[in-house]
Every structure is written in structure tokens, then in C-alpha cells.
């Protein structure tokens, strides 16, 4: 492939004097062949009257080819390329940046698998894997009584529904939430400062935050297709959720495989950890644990 260098040197006054006699004529193109490098030097005057020296360097490669191929190499160009000079035309042919084939070796995959398997073995040794249904030494999803999981979850939900219903009232009175119903009753606008919670906003905001942190669980090993609504469905039975944060890729919007779920109450969160950890979801086994308090 030719590499083209433009020698954009302005003619110096000395050169101009020299060339005064034959204005407009250019030195004739030169072609030198040194070994397998061919250098073609051409001169050109562009629209601004600037003189250009164009140096093209070619690498000459001699290849042996069959007669038919050699004959074809000498064919005249035609169609839109009819007036192209010999050699590749820069308008249609360019050499692009280096690219490399990225190899995916199975060895790497195997190593990755080994690493994946090791913690599993450890878990087995410590007998952490215990079925939530029959308390056996296997994953809940592999439980022979798996079909009863659904009913069990429902039961759980019912229990929770009762318990949350009981506790809703006292909890509600402590929180600034009842301001809204009051507002709807009167139909009058109440400025935030005059609302029920308004007087103790300063104290209620901060502790709430901390409570959130305490009742937050981290769910990992989610599949890429998981959406917030899926998580909501999955965790709603355990108690009221205050916040769901699903980590997503900025560009693609696909899930990064982990999420934080904040419950209103810590007991609900604990129950969610007990209930969903090891739960097979979308062909992956979910890992649920307490979220570590964030540094800031």
C-alpha cells in the first residue's frame, strides 16, 4: 500500500528567482526503485499557487500466481474506475486501523468455572445450603417438594398481610404520612410547614434514612433481563418496600446483576433474606444479604 506524504514547503524567494524563467512548469515526476521499494516523486501546483511535492512510497511484492490470475491483474479498469491511476485509489480504498482478533480460549472459561465452583464446594462443606421447604441439604429449587413453594409463599404473604395490617396504625401515627389523608378531607391546601410532620421534619428525616439503611438488602446474581417490577413482585410479599434500586448499565439499560431493596422494617428485610436467598429465579440462584452501609 502506498503511503503518501505531502511536502508542503513554500517556495523560498531564492527558488522563485531560479524558476522565473519557466513559470508554471514543474519538475518532471521521478521514479526510483531501490530494492523492493519504489518511490514516486511528483510535483503539483494547487489552486492557491502553492507547489506540492508528493512522495509516494510503494512496496513492490512479487507474487507467484496462476496464469489466469496474472492475466486478470493486467486488465484495464472500467466503469467508475475507468480513469483511476494504477494502484489503489485513495477515494475508494483505505487501510484502516489495526484490529485484532480477540481470542476466547476455553482455558480461561474453564478457570472461571473452577473459581465459580470453589465457593460452592465450600458452601457444601459448611452445610450452608439448606432447603427452606424440607430443610434438606440441597437448593430450594431442587427440592422434590418444590411445587409446594408457591402455596408456602402465599401463606407467608397472608401472614405478613395480617401482621403489617396490625402494625400499620401505630407506625403510621409516628410517620408524617397521615398528613395526606387529612389534606384530602378538607380539600384545602396546607403548606408543608403547617402539616402534621412539619414541626419535626428535622428529626424525622435523618433517622428515617438510617432506618432505611438498616432495612436494606443486597440482591446479587440477578439475570440481565431483570426489571424493577420483577423485583417488586418478588419482594412485596415480605413487607412494604420503601425503595428499589436496580443497578443498570448507562448505555444499554440492562441490569448489571445486582439490586438494593430497602424495606420499611428490618424484620421484613430479614425475612426476605431468609426467604429469597438461594431462590432460583430466571435460571440463576439469587444471593441475598444485608447491604453494607454506604461510606457517605
Amino acid at each position, binding site marked *: 500500500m502506498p503511503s503518501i506524504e505531502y511536502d508542503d514547503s513554500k517556495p523560498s524567494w531564492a527558488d522563485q528567482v531560479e524558476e522565473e524563467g519557466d513559470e508554471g512548469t514543474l519538475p518532471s515526476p521521478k521514479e526510483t526503485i531501490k530494492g523492493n521499494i519504489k518511490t514516486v516523486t511528483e510535483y503539483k501546483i494547487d489552486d492557491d499557487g502553492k507547489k506540492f511535492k508528493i512522495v509516494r512510497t510503494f512496496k513492490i511484492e512479487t507474487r507467484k*500466481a496462476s496464469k489466469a490470475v496474472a492475466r486478470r491483474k493486467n486488465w484495464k479498469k472500467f466503469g467508475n474506475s475507468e480513469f483511476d491511476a494504477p494502484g489503489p485509489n485513495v477515494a*475508494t480504498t483505505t487501510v*484502516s486501523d489495526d484490529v485484532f482478533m480477540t481470542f476466547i480460549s476455553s482455558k480461561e472459561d474453564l478457570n472461571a468455572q473452577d473459581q465459580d465452583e470453589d465457593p460452592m464446594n465450600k458452601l457444601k462443606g459448611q452445610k450452608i445450603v439448606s432447603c427452606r421447604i424440607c430443610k434438606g441439604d440441597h437448593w430450594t429449587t431442587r427440592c422434590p417438594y418444590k411445587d409446594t413453594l408457591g402455596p408456602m409463599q402465599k401463606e407467608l404473604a397472608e401472614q405478613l398481610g395480617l401482621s403489617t395490617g396490625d402494625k400499620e396504625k401505630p407506625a403510621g401515627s409516628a410517620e408524617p404520612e397521615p398528613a395526606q389523608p387529612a389534606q384530602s378531607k378538607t380539600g384545602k391546601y396546607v403548606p408543608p410547614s403547617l402539616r402534621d410532620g412539619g414541626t419535626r421534619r428535622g428529626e424525622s428525616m435523618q433517622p428515617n434514612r438510617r432506618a432505611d439503611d438498616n432495612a436494606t438488602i443486597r440482591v446479587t446474581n440477578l439475570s440481565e433481563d431483570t426489571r424493577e417490577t420483577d423485583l417488586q413482585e418478588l419482594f412485596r410479599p415480605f413487607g412494604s418496600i420503601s425503595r428499589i434500586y436496580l443497578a443498570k448499565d448507562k*448505555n444499554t439499560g440492562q441490569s448489571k446483576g445486582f439490586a438494593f431493596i430497602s424495606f420499611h422494617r428490618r424484620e421484613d428485610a430479614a425475612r426476605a433474606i431468609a426467604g429469597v436467598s438461594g431462590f432460583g429465579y430466571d435460571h440463576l440462584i439469587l444471593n441475598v444479604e444485608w447491604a453494607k452501609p454506604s461510606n457517605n
Partner: protein
Amino acid sequence: MKPILLQGHERSITQIKYNREGDLLFSVAKDTVANVWYSVNGERLGTYNGHTGAVWCVDCDWDTKNVLTGSADNSCRLWDCETGKQLALLNTNSAVRTCGFDFSGNIIMFSTDKQMGYQCYLNFFDLRDPQQIDDNQPYLSVPCSDHKITSAVWGPLGEFVIAGHENGEINQFSAKSGEVLKKIKEHTKQINDIQPSVDLTIFITASKDNSAKLFDSTSLDHIKTFKTERPVNSAAISPIMDHVVMGGGQEAMEVTTTSTRIGKFEARFFHAAYEEEFGRVKGHFGPINCVAFHPDGKSYSSGGEDGYTRIHYFDPQYFDFELEA
């Protein structure tokens, strides 16, 4: 490797093909010209001008004398490869989707789209009989009423044409009687591309159902399956290694809404026997519409929705690489 970038088209590439020796590379696109390039340095030899619609397919005969192109301007044209002159114009009722020379270079086949009230036909012309061309009267015309042909190649010995259909079916049409010799349905969606091996004994299909499959040409026995997560637009078999290359990506209409990073626009190399992916090559800005191996197996080319054709000469690592099984 430093790919050679060929910018001869203004629209997306529809098909690229090497001639038998591999010194020339033909490319056609959704614009109206067909280009021919020297594969060794990417120099453009010429263009075949005349079509007035998107060109869907191109083929070259064994001695690189004639070139056949089929276009959406409802015509199939025969060109003199050396001079770019149009030798014959075969008008049809609907767009020509696939075309091909049989190994002798004497018989051509092309298929037309099911379109504008016309059904899909597979037509056969014998070039030795000028009367057929003059009268535009094929010696054999096979109607395919149900599902149109989306890709087709000649089978071994010029006995039949292997055609892939819109619904994923693969049929063998006899070139003598037109009857369906064998019929299979291994794919669930449209077959985008069929490419035979050098000796024509096996072929690979690329389908919209996210997979490519290897078949035996004569018996249509299913041999191997290569799975990806995106529709496969094209697949080719390496002539010297047990490799296949696949090009694809999500559908062209969805390109603008996704970033290139997750578009999976790479050419993907699979081991033919283990059905395992072992390498990827990036480069195109859109899905790859067509891939082709050089007949010597030392380079391959890809044509993309971005309108570029890229010729890649493999690095030595490619030949040294061995997949650990």
C-alpha cells in the same frame, strides 16, 4: 491485522463474493452498482453500471468470465467480467433475490420475490442457448407458492439448487425437473444466507433465529449448530481450517437505538467441530450483512450495513491458535 477498507458503495452491502481463485472480490449493495476489487490490495478494478434498483445478489462463474447480478429493479443481468459490458438483461416481474452460476458456468439460476401479486419463482436459463436469453424464456421455472426463497446456492455437480426459505425451510430443487428432491425444516425463522464449502459437499445456513447450521449438501443431514444471541446474517466455512465465521447483529432497524458495544457487530469465529466460539473481530459500525472466506483461507472479508467492505488478512496467531477441548 490491518483491514483494507473498501468504500465503493453508498448504501449497505447486500452480498460479497470471491471468484474461484480469490483474486477478485465482488460486492453489491442497496445502491445500483456492482463493484469488483483486487483482493490483494483492495484496488478497484471496475464497476458494473446499469441497474436501477438495489442489487441483492452477485455471482461469478468458474473461469471469471461472466458475472451475474440480480436486483430489485426487476431484472437479472449478465456482465462481461473484464470489460464491465452488459451481455444480457433478463426482465422479471418482481425483485431478483438470489442468483448463481452452476459449476460449469453454463446454467444460471435466479429466484424472484413474492411481491406485487406475483409469486416466488426459481428460474433456470441455459446460456448455451441464446434463444432462451433473447426470448427471456427460462427452460425451467419453478413456482414456490408458500414461502419465498431468501437464499440459494447450487449443489454439487449442478444437479440441484439448495434454497432457504422465509420460514426456515430448506429445499433441494432439481435443476432438470424442478421437483423438490428433499425438504427439511431445521430453522424456525428466515434463512438469510447459504454458503457452500469449497468442494460443495457441505453448506452452512445463517438464520434469523440466532443460529447457523451445517448440513450435508446431498442428504441435507444436519451436522452442527452454532448458536449466538443475535440474528445471523451470513456465515461462511473456512476452506483450510475447521472454522466458520458468522456475521450478524441486531436488525438494521434497531441499530440507531443501541450502542455499538452491545450491538454485537463483530465477526465471530466458531470451531466447526466443537461448535464453540473462539474469536471475534471488531470493525463495522453496524451489523455485518455478508461474510466470505478467501478460497485460500488466509483472509476473509465482511460487508456491513455501514456500507463498507473490509478485507482482513489473518495474523499468524490465527493459524497457531488451537482450541483446547
